[in-house]
């Protein structure tokens, strides 16, 4: 602003005498700023904005001059709004003394277009419903992003701990917790529930893989029965990931688990999902609909499960794929967030609770390697502490994208993830902490 040259002080003070915010609308200022506002309709909104911007500058500048001339500009400034310049903020020229904080009301609206509810899905069945679980778990039912103030979240997040039907290679920090039960899936499942606070267990029938042991489906189903006997929480049954063998394995497992309302993991587009879906429908189970980081594939598979295979909506959970922190979690996060937002906004092919294979976090070298393979890196510190936090942060991130059920491995990770998700959910009471003087805290 260089407006002073062409203006005489007398002109200025004349103008300032009857200056108030309202009258700015009709003011014409000449100089190298020419503003000629006539008001009325037909103004280009962009132009109007720009003019508004200009005006606010002029008023500020003039108020500044007014202060020098003894005009009580503070009052004017206090009642003004929109003086703030858009863009990179800077210290403005004017620095009037203000003695009292300007009054202000903080308001923010709830999101209007979150109109659809995420489907509620119940896992497990008690004796009253033809199963033998002591209790059931319900996930889903959200009307907003997780933990948001827009709407209550009806169910907390849940964790299912991984159990394998044969010893597998695991990160050392994980293995240490399971060494005594690694050859006995039933004992393993018991330990997960009894000692590690698992809400559910997942029995992974990995030995059925033709490339591993090629255990027959019938034999694998016996392990499922053992696990159902050993624990009374709802269970997930996982295949080996072999697309040729899994449908047969999961169908047989579904049969022996009839009535227990297990989660069958999983149906995907690259295998005979119809067979898995049919087993779920025939024996009263829930299907995990698994796709790989692709929202349209997720829609397609869900559509096929509902329309082609007649799986009821309340029997579908989706797994849009979990990539570990540092290994594609950005894709996994945004994919889940997009799915959840689309569901809330009414895309009924995506209104399903979500599940995450959070255990994938242990694939990150940061979780399991003794030290960085790169000499330039700063010291990575003890891996015993790195692994669990990698699993926690991977899960926590996806919980904020809307994930409901977490498949996990490390007891510490389970404990901390449950603590933080239930804190955000509002179920954790703790002593109030006064942070008003945190700077001086002794730590």
């Amino acid at each position, binding site marked *: 602003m260089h407006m002073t040259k062409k203006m005489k002080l007398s002109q200025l003070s004349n103008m300032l005498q009857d200056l108030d915010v309202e009258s700015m609308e009709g003011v014409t200022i000449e100089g190298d700023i020419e503003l000629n506002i006539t008001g009325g309709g037909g103004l280009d909104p962009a132009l109007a904005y720009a003019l508004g911007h200009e005006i606010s500058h002029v008023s500020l500048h003039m108020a500044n001059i007014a202060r020098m001339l003894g005009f009580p500009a503070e009052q004017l*400034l206090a009642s003004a709004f929109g003086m703030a310049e858009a863009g990179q903020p800077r210290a403005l020229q004017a620095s009037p003394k203000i003695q009292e904080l300007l009054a202000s009301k903080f308001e923010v609206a709830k999101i209007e277009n979150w109109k659809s509810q995420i489907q509620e899905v119940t896992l497990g069945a008690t004796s009253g419903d033809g199963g033998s679980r002591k209790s059931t778990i319900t996930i889903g039912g959200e009307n907003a992003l997780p933990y948001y103030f827009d709407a209550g979240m009806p169910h907390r997040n849940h964790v299912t701990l991984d159990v394998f039907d044969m010893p597998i290679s695991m990160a050392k920090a994980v293995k240490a917790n399971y060494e005594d039960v690694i050859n006995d899936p039933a004992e393993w499942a018991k330990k997960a529930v009894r000692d590690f606070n698992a809400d559910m267990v997942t029995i992974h029938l990995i030995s059925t893989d033709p490339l591993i042991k090629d255990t027959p489906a019938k034999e694998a189903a016996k392990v499922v029965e053992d696990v159902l006997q050993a624990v009374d929480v709802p269970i997930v049954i996982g295949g080996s990931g072999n697309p040729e063998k899994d449908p047969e394995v999961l169908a047989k497992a579904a049969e022996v688990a009839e009535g227990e309302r297990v989660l069958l993991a999983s149906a995907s587009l690259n295998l005979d999902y119809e067979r898995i879906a049919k087993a779920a429908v025939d024996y009263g189970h829930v299907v995990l609909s698994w796709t790989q980081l692709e929202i349209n594939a997720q829609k397609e598979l869900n559509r096929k499960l509902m329309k082609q295979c007649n799986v009821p909506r309340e029997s579908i959970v989706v797994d849009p794929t979990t990539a570990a922190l540092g*290994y594609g979690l*950005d894709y996994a996060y945004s994919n889940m967030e997009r799915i959840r937002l689309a569901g809330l906004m009414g895309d009924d092919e995506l209104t399903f609770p979500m599940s995450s294979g959070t255990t994938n976090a242990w694939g990150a070298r940061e979780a399991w390697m003794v030290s960085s393979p790169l000499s330039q890196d700063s010291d990575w510190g003890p891996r015993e*502490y790195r692994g669990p936090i990698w699993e926690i942060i991977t899960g926590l991130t996806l919980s904020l994208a809307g994930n409901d059920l977490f498949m996990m491995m490390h007891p510490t990770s389970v404990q*901390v993830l449950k603590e933080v998700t239930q804190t955000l959910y509002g179920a954790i009471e703790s002593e109030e902490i006064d942070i008003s003087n945190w700077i001086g805290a002794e730590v």
Partner: protein
Amino acid sequence: MKINSPLEAYKFLPGTNCGECGELTCMAFAAHLIDRSKKLTECKPILEDKFKKKFEELTALLAPEIREVEIGVGDRVSKIGGDDVLYRHKLTFFNQTQFAYDVWDTMDEKELVERVNYIQDFKKFYVGSFLNVDMVAVRCTSNDPAKFAAAVKKVVETTDMPIILCSFEPAVLKAGLEVSKDRNPLLYAANRDNWKEIADLALEYDVPVTLFAPDDLELLKSMAKTFAAMGTEKLVLDPGTFPTGKQLRQTFTNFIKLRRAGIEGDRDIAYPIMAVPFTAWMAHDDPVSASYWETVVASIFTIKYGDIMILHSTEPYAILPEIHIRDTMYTDPRKPVSVDPGMYKVGEPTVDSPVLITTNFALTYYTVESDLASSKIDCYLWAIDTDGIGVEAAVAGGQLTASKIKKGIEDSGFDLKKDTTHNTIIIPGLAARLQGDVEDETGANVMVGPADSGRIPGWMDKNWPPQKK
């Protein structure tokens, strides 16, 4: 920003299609302005005097909803804020969350210098460059201006990193400012009691300032309005970070509300937000529990709208996940992430080691690479240039072909016949249908690996070394 179509931006451009910006037309340039991949100053003609007004108008229209605030100077300046969206997939998040780790003025001087050096030297290699942390926050625990000034001075002498001066005592902050005023430090903080004196300091020294109103968004907004009216918009808002229980849930709500209001156009509070995961240390005595919980709180507010934060734990198991979750959130989702195409050695391969093919999609590449490395399989791994597309889609879309594979291997100066004893290529299971083509094109034996690289170890046990024909 206030406009959302290229046409609205185009109206302000010279319209000469001069091409100086690197785009063929002004309309194409306008599209880049809207998606924020180009800056208006890249249009040279609009910088001329005759377009001055249009330049200024368009600059205002393009300004991000959340103001950008600078802390520090020169090469080490930290920019925070600048966001236009609530969800990263809607555009991208700008100016990644800045992490400040604390030192305090009752620390032994030698320890302080060591800690500052550790903070400024921390680095971790990731996808082609190093991840680092950003700032030092100096806490006044002595309540003594002279002591505080001495600590700040030591920090200034030790590092170029931006600095946060932390005290609620104006005299203390003034003493700190006197020895760091050339470094554009961030003041922490003005609160309900001291705001007048802190505002004077912020204006006198022309430095950014944090406003602290724990769980009181109304007060926070009042302070922000008042500071703006007094003449500074270099503001950072701290709504308080309560570390546990219902208070943490409320903190989460406050962050969501603040950012939502800012993005939706409440200019009075459209400033960067500060989180203080440090407070986790007020809830936990055991350092591992405190570090863990601090990392958890830091992650929540890196994901949900924290633009800058003050942390205490410098344990690698805290910093590593923190810098990775930040990278996760701030990676531009519009750009496919890829690795440089070419040959990578995993372990220490010899002439007998397998040769594997994957794509240069970073996620695929790093997954395959870590699967191989974790199973200690020494091998040669090619990242074929598929424009950063994964195997399945690249086969379907024609970005992964036999000729691309041949070219990729040849470009690395690798000769399968001379540099291996087996003249064999292993292609991904998801590219099985290229087997015949690759055999014809390269003259090598081609084996089809598993569809999931997690199965490579088992596959190798059965299939490697290949049986001599």
